[in-house]
């Protein structure tokens, strides 16, 4: 919807936080952007890539976050403003480079890292606060509190990075990154960019330009000087502000989306005259003077922040260093239990914390209505578990895996990875997957399991991994399995897209982020060149896939690769009409009388094939069914009929 390159300064647009970041980067005159997709960060690079050609910039989906950050640093070294963006897990992947980059410093082009955290892990494997890495590695850190600020802060951060000569970081959370709000646009720069790796950095110096972390103690000392300068800049930043009375019963200290929740909560409780909010936008190094000037607003401090008590602990450290005569505030927050130390926050949770501390009652709706509404909803609203989409090839793959392992009979173990197919931990994938950690971990764990033969282990080991995840972090684990002869099958679920995060292209798709055709990095050629036995299956050929898996399991002898190749159904549906018209023949389906125990609906669980309780028959839901026809091969009665469209 939103065109982030719209040249209409002063107009308001409804942008998601990620688009606001992209727009801020464009307004800052960015030339280079790199990222690996990951919710809730993907739209930053996605929207930049869409306008890259017209804007004369470069944007890429990198193979992983570490390469993205390194590539962006390369651009900075040659004087181009660059951005790397990622979700919280990406920060772990890139941390080794970051620890060295902060020592080496950046080039003449401002370099910004954006990290989008996912409190409550709504679309993540884990919940993780990335703010502490700024403290750990000495990176100036900011966090925007609304959509306008997201754009303005991003734009400003490039100036700051250049002025300090160090990487700067912006942390965002789901409810900024993925929520939408008003953003008033600024000017887009018109100047032509020129990249040049300046060999002589300083004319007075005889040394050529180098970017390296050594001599480390000296670089570390310089880094601390940069952080002191950052602190000075932060003390006067307009991104930090106080709203509320001069003397308050409670002072909320907050940042990010919690700034919005805190305002909502104070308004809902009508406490504008009693509760003050100190909103911080620059988080690290802590603007201690600015905070100190407001600490006497109240003797009670409430910290409202998502996920870890980052500000809470930092202000505690700060207060511990105040002169003994200074007032000692009471700290409320995660440590005191007034604010959850896990999961995302919302206005209701902040209302609860304030009400508890100030001893207030809050009743947003009629109590009788509430009791009734909650009771009616509780008894009439069935669960709605997430599942693979109707027509998803993963359902077919896990059906084949389940059957192959059942036929083998030795209790085969499936290790899993990060993507849509993580849902195979549950009913969507017939509970086949038993481990799930980080990108590439499934194959890594399989390496260990596959070497336990000497201890009597004879269970087959399958590691499932998506196509994009394969390129991202799985190749070293496969090489290890071939080199060390670990006995497992790497099952690559190749659906030709990074489907979970929005169908971004990857090295196997032959398409770049900017929509240019490029070389296909063939996964089968790559795996063959490593010496692996490689098979390619169409998972919709259930019989053939089960037979291939059984043969590979029986074969033994080091890591092997089975590629399950079929396009993501959502990608197919965007381009083509459904291949089949599917219906259930009510004469052939004999319902509960069939010995199959409702295999089609109780076990197979495609949302397009429903159970008509009254008729005691299964039935196609024509709104949800995508016409893939896979269920035809699941029904033992032959009662499901497909007709080519």
């Amino acid at each position, binding site marked *: 919807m939103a065109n982030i390159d719209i040249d209409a300064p002063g107009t308001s647009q409804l942008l998601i936080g990620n688009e606001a970041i992209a727009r801020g980067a464009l307004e800052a005159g960015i030339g280079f952007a790199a990222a690996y997709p990951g919710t809730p960060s993907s739209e930053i690079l996605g929207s930049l890539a869409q306008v890259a050609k017209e804007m004369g910039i470069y944007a890429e989906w990198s193979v992983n976050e570490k390469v993205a950050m390194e590539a962006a640093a390369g651009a900075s070294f040659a004087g181009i403003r660059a951005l790397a963006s990622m979700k919280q897990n990406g920060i772990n992947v890139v941390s080794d480079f970051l620890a060295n980059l902060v020592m080496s410093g950046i080039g003449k082009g401002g370099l910004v890292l954006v990290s989008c955290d996912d409190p409550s892990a709504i679309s993540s494997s884990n919940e993780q606060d990335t703010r502490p890495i700024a403290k750990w590695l000495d990176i100036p850190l900011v966090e925007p509190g609304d959509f306008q600020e997201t754009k303005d802060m991003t734009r400003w951060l490039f100036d700051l990075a250049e002025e300090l000569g160090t990487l700067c970081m912006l942390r965002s959370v789901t409810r900024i990154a993925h929520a939408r709000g008003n953003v008033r646009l600024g000017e887009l720069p018109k100047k032509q960019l020129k990249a040049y790796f300046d060999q002589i950095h300083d004319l007075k110096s005889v040394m050529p330009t180098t970017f390296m972390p050594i001599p480390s103690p000296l670089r570390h000392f310089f880094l601390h000087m940069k952080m002191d300068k950052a602190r000075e800049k932060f003390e006067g930043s307009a991104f930090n502000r106080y709203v509320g009375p001069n003397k308050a019963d409670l002072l909320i200290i907050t940042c990010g989306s919690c700034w919005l929740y805190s305002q909502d909560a104070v308004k809902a409780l009508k406490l504008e005259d009693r509760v003050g909010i100190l909103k911080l936008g620059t988080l690290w190094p802590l603007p201690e003077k600015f905070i100190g000037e407001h600490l006497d607003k109240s003797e009670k401090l409430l910290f409202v922040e998502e996920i870890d008590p980052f500000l809470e602990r930092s202000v505690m450290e700060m207060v511990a260093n105040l002169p003994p005569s200074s007032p000692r505030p009471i700290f409320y927050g995660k440590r005191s239990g007034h604010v959850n130390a896990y999961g995302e926050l919302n206005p209701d949770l902040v209302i609860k914390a304030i009400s508890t501390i100030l001893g207030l009652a809050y009743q947003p709706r009629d109590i009788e209505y509430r009791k009734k509404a909650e009771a009616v909803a509780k008894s009439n609203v069935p669960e709605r578990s997430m599942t693979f989409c109707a027509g998803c090839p993963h359902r077919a793959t896990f059906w084949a895996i389940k059957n192959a392992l059942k036929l083998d009979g030795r209790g085969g173990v499936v290790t899993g990875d990060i993507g849509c197919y993580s849902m195979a931990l549950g009913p969507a994938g017939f509970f086949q997957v038993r481990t799930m950690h980080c990108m590439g971990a499934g194959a890594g764990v399989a390496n260990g399991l596959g070497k336990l033969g000497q201890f009597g282990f004879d269970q087959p080991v399958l590691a499932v991994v998506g196509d994009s995840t394969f390129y991202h972090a799985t190749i070293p684990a496969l090489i290890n399995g071939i080199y060390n002869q670990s006995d497992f099958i790497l099952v690559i679920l190749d659906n030709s897209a990074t489907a979970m995060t929005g169908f971004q292209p990857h090295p196997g798709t032959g398409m770049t982020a900017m929509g240019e055709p490029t070389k296909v990095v063939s996964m089968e050629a790559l795996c063959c060149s490593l010496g692996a036995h490689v098979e390619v299956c169409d998972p919709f050929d259930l019989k053939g896939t089960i037979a291939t898996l059984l043969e590979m399991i029986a074969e033994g002898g080091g890591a092997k690769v089975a590629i399950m190749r079929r396009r993501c159904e959502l990608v197919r549906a965007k381009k083509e009409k459904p291949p089949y018209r599917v219906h259930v023949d009510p004469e052939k389906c004999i319902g509960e009388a069939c010995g199959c125990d409702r295999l089609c609906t109780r076990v197979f669980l495609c*949302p397009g094939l429903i159970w008509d309780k009254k008729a005691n028959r299964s039935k196609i*839901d024509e709104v949800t069914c995508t016409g893939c026809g896979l269920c035809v091969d699941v029904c033992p009665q032959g009662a499901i009929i497909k007709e080519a469209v």
Partner: protein
Amino acid sequence: MTKKQLVKDPLNLIITGVGGQGNVMISLIIGNAFVREGYFVTLGETYGASQRGGPVMSHMRISKETQYSPFIPDGCADIILGMEPVETLRMLGRYGNPNVITIINPRPIYSIDVIGGQAEYPDLHKLVESVKELSAKTWIINATEEAQKMGSHMFANAILIGALVGSGVLPLDKKSVEPVLREIFPKEITANLAAFNKGIKLVRS
């Protein structure tokens, strides 16, 4: 004629349904129409479950004064647009109040829990009655059925947008929504505009 005003500031609108139904699309169209009229709009979306059959909701906060958070506090919805009946009731349980207005498409989408037999889908008639009982006013719009008559269930979304605009519960008129519709559905604009007008007609009949 003076321009219509918000009956309440912020006005809290929930759009709810099942992943894949087009919840985000509807909220984008309504949200953009409001921003063009000079309002602050904050829009929070469920995601992750958004294309995987899970329950989805969009929270829209509309204000003339300031940018609200993307979460409507419990018990504080003013309007619920329900693309699916059970999901409408789920929202009423948490966000409903005696003044809430609902617009509901009564076409069920079964969850895998219902398909697999671990959960029961309630009787549709009783379900719709419960929604009515918990709302100050309810419009029942057979959007899926009407869309199928127009050639595809996909037009249900434009019908529901028409119903929402035509009901008069928002200070938006046809003229402020139509240009946004044209931008979002450039390919199927004729059919979607017809569906939009159908929705207006249905809600007013």
